[in-house]
């Protein structure tokens, strides 16, 4: 078993679609939280094969997209400090800020380097002892453990010149914020498979218990997503709310204990600023006092200018699931992957980029 082709069988996919069509009797609106799901759904043209009354909305699950403008400015201000090498995952480098992107800062002389892993950032710190190496920690519970691991490793090695600007975020509080705002009606949530690999399926129990809606945790292959949609339809038709896990090959109910422990050791949980949402309580990981000497936000205490969102950009509404990318006036006219105005067009996980690439008239 290679865990890929087996979950792409077209015959089984057609059968699942048929099942959904047969069993679904009333309108249902579902949200996929995860940008990886958004990308997969568009790539396989899933929205077109589902009946019209089974609606999928894209959620805020694109880490680059939800990074607040002020945090982006802070990362740029740090990158411009003398002796700093700013290391970051690739997607962040092209997000436009008020004074350009990190890519443009690099063209102007800042040392900004793309890394695949926090392990690479540590290696840069080891080989550049005279520089201050800052890792830009962006992402949800899927990448936060790697930042935690790097902090622990740097401490163990006594690596003096390694810092983290910690912008990591938690997904359940954002889901809660969408439901609390009441701007979009949701009848079920497609649970993010890899986030839930870390946090465990039990972390979604609040959805049925407090909001009366189901969450079905799904993998990223066509059959995984269709199976989850079918389960959400079945639960809705039966007037039931529950958490189900159809990605059992990776997701366990308690998550990855080691990853969670590493985060517990290095992070505290507090409010965080999300693009499109503002501050969401208990939605951000911050570096614990014990590791304050590695916290770039504290070590480089810089004045950050007040920033405004790009004019006309509707990323906020898109992230909250209130608006489809094609409803934005800039979509395809001014804003494209080559000349993105907002972050949702930059990242491959962004809804605007997925619409642009795989067709907007959906």
């Amino acid at each position, binding site marked *: 078993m290679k865990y890929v082709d087996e*979950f792409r069988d077209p015959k089984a996919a057609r059968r699942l679609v048929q099942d959904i069509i047969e069993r679904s009797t009333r309108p249902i609106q579902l949200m996929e939280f995860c940008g990886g799901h958004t990308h997969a759904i568009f790539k396989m043209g899933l929205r077109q094969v589902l009946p019209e009354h089974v609606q999928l909305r894209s959620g805020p699950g694109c880490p680059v997209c939800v990074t607040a403008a002020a945090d982006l400015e802070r990362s740029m201000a740090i990158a411009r400090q003398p002796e700093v090498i700013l290391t970051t995952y690739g997607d962040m480098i092209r997000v436009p800020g008020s004074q350009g992107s990190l890519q443009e800062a690099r063209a102007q002389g800042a040392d900004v380097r793309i890394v695949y892993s*926090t392990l690479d950032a540590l290696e840069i710190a080891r080989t550049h002892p005279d520089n201050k190496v800052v890792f830009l920690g962006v*992402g949800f519970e*899927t990448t936060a453990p790697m930042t935690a691991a790097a902090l622990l490793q740097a401490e163990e090695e006594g690596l003096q010149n390694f810092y983290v600007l910690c912008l990591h975020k938690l997904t359940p509080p954002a889901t809660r914020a969408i439901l609390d705002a009441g701007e979009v009606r949701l009848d079920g949530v497609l649970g993010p498979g890899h986030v839930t690999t870390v946090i465990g399926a039990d972390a979604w129990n609040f959805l049925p218990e407090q909001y009366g809606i189901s969450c079905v945790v799904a993998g990223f292959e066509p059959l995984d997503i269709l199976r989850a949609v079918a389960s959400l339809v079945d639960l809705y038709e039966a007037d039931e709310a529950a958490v189900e896990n159809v990605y059992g090959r*990776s997701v366990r109910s308690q998550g990855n204990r080691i990853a969670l422990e590493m985060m517990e050791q290095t992070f505290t949980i507090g409010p965080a600023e999300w693009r499109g949402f503002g501050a969401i309580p208990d939605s951000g990981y911050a570096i614990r006092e014990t590791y304050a000497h590695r916290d770039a936000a504290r070590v480089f205490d810089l004045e950050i200018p007040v920033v405004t969102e790009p004019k006309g950009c509707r990323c906020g509404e898109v992230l909250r699931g209130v608006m489809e990318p094609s409803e934005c006036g800039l979509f395809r006219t001014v804003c494209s992957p080559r000349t993105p105005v907002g972050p949702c067009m930059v990242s*491959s996980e962004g809804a605007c980029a997925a619409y642009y690439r795989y067709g907007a008239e959906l």
Partner: protein
Amino acid sequence: MCLAVPTLIKSIDGQNAQVELGGVERTISLVMTPEATVGDYVIVHTGFALSVLDEKEAKETLAMFAEIDALANEDAA
């Protein structure tokens, strides 16, 4: 950032493993999945294995699809 594909572990050296990702040999960390062994498929995120894929669970999921198909064929008959 949450996209990841199942990746086969080719060899293990302490906390690190050699895998092939997109045609490129890479070293990944097994610090979060110490139970992984050579021949296992793991979900890799930014250089770290996050889970070891459970073959039994995967087979059960696939069996469920086969069952749906069998039921459908019965209906048609």
